């Protein structure tokens, strides 16, 4: 498991590890927010196939719609129960 401290590091980490099974992506991050990072991931041929689950404290419909249109696999509002997260990961991870 790899961890990144902000959106810019997350993008670089994904670019360097294109065989990732799944990305859990927060929204409210320094330097680059989660939806912007998602859009960049999904527009990059190297990283566009990596499934992304948004894991955030927010539930604003416009952000959820934007994430869905960008290609996110799902949206979870924290806190999440470990078994629910594990079940979701199994369903969307490649």
């Amino acid at each position, binding site marked *: 498991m790899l961890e990144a401290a902000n959106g810019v590091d997350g993008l670089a980490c994904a670019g360097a590890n294109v065989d990732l099974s799944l990305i859990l992506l927060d929204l409210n*991050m320094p330097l680059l927010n989660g939806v912007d990072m998602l859009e960049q991931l999904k527009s990059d041929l190297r990283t566009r196939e990596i499934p992304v689950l948004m894991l955030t*404290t*927010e539930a604003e*419909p416009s952000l959820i719609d934007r994430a*869905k249109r960008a290609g996110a696999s*799902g949206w*979870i*509002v924290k*806190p999440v129960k470990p078994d629910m997260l594990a079940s979701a990961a199994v*369903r969307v991870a490649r």
Partner: protein
Amino acid sequence: MFLERPEVSDLMKRFGTHACLELFGAYGVKLLHGADDRELSGPVFSSVIGLVGDKLRATCLLAATEGPLRASCPAGEQLRDWTGELANQLVGRIKMQLFARSVNVALSTPLTLTSVRLVPLPRSNVGPIQFTLETEPVTVWLEVQATSDFELGPECLPVVSIGELRLF
């Protein structure tokens, strides 16, 4: 023009109280809400997040001593990082309560500090919200400003609730 409006500060204080009790409860920690005016003394972990909308802006600080943070903290997490995450989730809950009433705000990322002492000095007569876990304090301090025409809309159900998963 943004003003300090006591009725809006009171409203946000109610949202903050509810959000903090529910948040710690979600991690198995039952806080007591009460007027404990002791200063927080060390080490104190605190995290600050800004909320900005067209008609409402606020600063939210979550501060606590080690006990309540450690009691709620998942294994392996650093307390300093956990304080920022709790503040993020606290303000996310307040945002959801505002959004359900047609008020949209953007959030800043959390800034986390560790100190020996923390003594809030409220600008208005709406003071910090105080909680305790056994003898240890948790403080939520919201400083709020709103325009003169700020008001809440009727309450609507959220598209996705706290703790819910929506697969696309």
